């Protein structure tokens, strides 16, 4: 019963996602075309202004470290957290030492 319900909801999710893959009434952004500049205004700004404002030749690095640098420090913190957590979980148990 529970399992059938789960699979039915899975099909529902698939249907909805496939529905919005159609550019006529779903995600308007297909692979490029004329609308690229109007829909991807943020990306276009980075491409045209990134070299002057940040100075890195690699626009992706410019975004990662300057425009969205705060995300990157969050990412570094995630890595730090996960490694601290993994080391904490893989430490010897109380009583293993003897």
């Amino acid at each position, binding site marked *: 019963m529970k399992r059938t319900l789960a699979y039915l909801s899975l099909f529902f999710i698939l249907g909805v996602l496939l529905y*919005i893959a159609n550019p006529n009434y779903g*995600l308007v952004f297909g692979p490029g075309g004329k609308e690229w500049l109007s829909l991807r205004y*943020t990306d276009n700004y980075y491409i045209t202004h990134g070299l002057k404002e940040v100075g890195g030749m690699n626009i992706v690095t410019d975004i990662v470290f300057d*425009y969205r640098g705060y995300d990157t420090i*969050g990412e570094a913190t995630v890595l730090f*957290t996960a490694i601290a*957590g993994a080391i904490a979980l893989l430490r010897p148990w*109380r009583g293993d030492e003897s």
Partner: protein
Amino acid sequence: MNGEAILPYLIIIPLFGAFSMPIVSLAGRKAREAWAVIISGATLALGSALFYYVWESGKIVLYTLGAKSPLGQGVNFPIRIVWEVDTFGALMVLMVTFVSFMAVIYSLGYMKHDTGLDKYYTLIIILELGMLGIAITGDLFNFYVFLEIMSIASYALVAFRNDTWEGIEAGIKYMFVGSIASSLILLGIALLYGQYGTLTMGYLALKLSQNPTVVGKVALALFIAGLLFKSGASPVHMWLADAHPAAPSSISAMLSGLVIKIGGIYALTRILFSIYGTSISTKTVGWVIIVFACITLIVGNAMAVIQTDMKRLLAYSSVGQIGYILLGIGIGLTAYGSQTGEIALAGAIYHTFNHALMKALLFLIAGVVIHQLGTRNLNELSGLAKTMPKTTFAFLIGAAAIIGMPPLNGFASKWLIYESSAIFNPLLGAIAIIGTAFCTAAYVRVLYTFFGRPSEKVMKAKDPEGTMLWPILILTIAIIVMGLFPWQISDKIMIPAVKTLENQLAYVSTLLGGA
């Protein structure tokens, strides 16, 4: 003091504390503990200052990372990450910093016999950092990053006692459910970016109100699903009932008091009111949330009655109280803009704050009991009032507040929710009262056990030493003091917070025109 000047240090100080913890802990145990207390205390001071500034000025504080203004040169859309803090966000900051500080002080005594404590203090500071980041952010992808920081830290902390099977099993369940929920949220963010081409919340709100599309609605459904998972609403509350009892008690207090509020309720409110607002059908979405809230309310409180494990009872009670908060948010969304909606939303925010204090207090007391007696089975705890009078008094206060007894703070917030739900629809008011009846039964049972005839085992117990007693006393005093001025708090803080939360236009215009 200027709010914009305080805001970055709210993130920098916990980050500095976490990154320097491996170096500081080379100097030994005392240095590590002192460092954790200093960092969380400094964060508490900054959080209070920020709250005071935002509350007094009533403005929305905007801070841009990396430039003076979030807008690009010669264009009128934001290209950088921003922080936007309104009164609701500042209230959450105050709540997080206060309860975290209490939990850190409590850990000094409670975690004395565990190993791997340098990682423990690192993780607890990072947990606080993640919640602060969510509370102040104004960017959707950044919200996801900090949600993951908070979630990963809490997965690791739930399973921190890796020599007990209970912690590991609860950690695995929590991790899988939480990761699925995070993936749903990330999918929603990707869809919104694909449709509107921006990630800043304020600008997204503008774009959504100009052109609400199907993709936006699907993304909203994904957000609601993911955040209900994270907040432990009823059909998927099982992970909460496993994870919160299995964690160490100081962590249980933070998980139950803060994580489900910030990662679930606060994020849901922010997305519903600040991003979507009136660009969706508020009635439909509101009723969906109300239905989930009613199920959660009944199931959580009813399951709490039949538990024999003290911490499990508290965890189920958390599920029930989340139901009240969701009910308030649902009514606030359905009756968007009316007086009833404002009262319901004020009640929800007030109850979020109150429940953080009450549930943190109750979990810390459960930790004291475990520390003294080594058991949390209610059948073995009878007669605790004789040997641990201060602890029992604090439990009495906490339980009375969570039930909603008049002189304490829980009464005011619950009253606002009852009142608005009864005006909105009498049936919902009746359901809320039934939930409270179950809640009362559960806590009266615990108190009855505590005041019963002492057993042999209980006679050896005594009140804990300083570092474990002080956080409990401070939280008790906070509850009593907040209970003395219920209507002043609700008129001076909660109603303005709701007013700024519902004012979507101010949120957008602060972003675009403020600079």
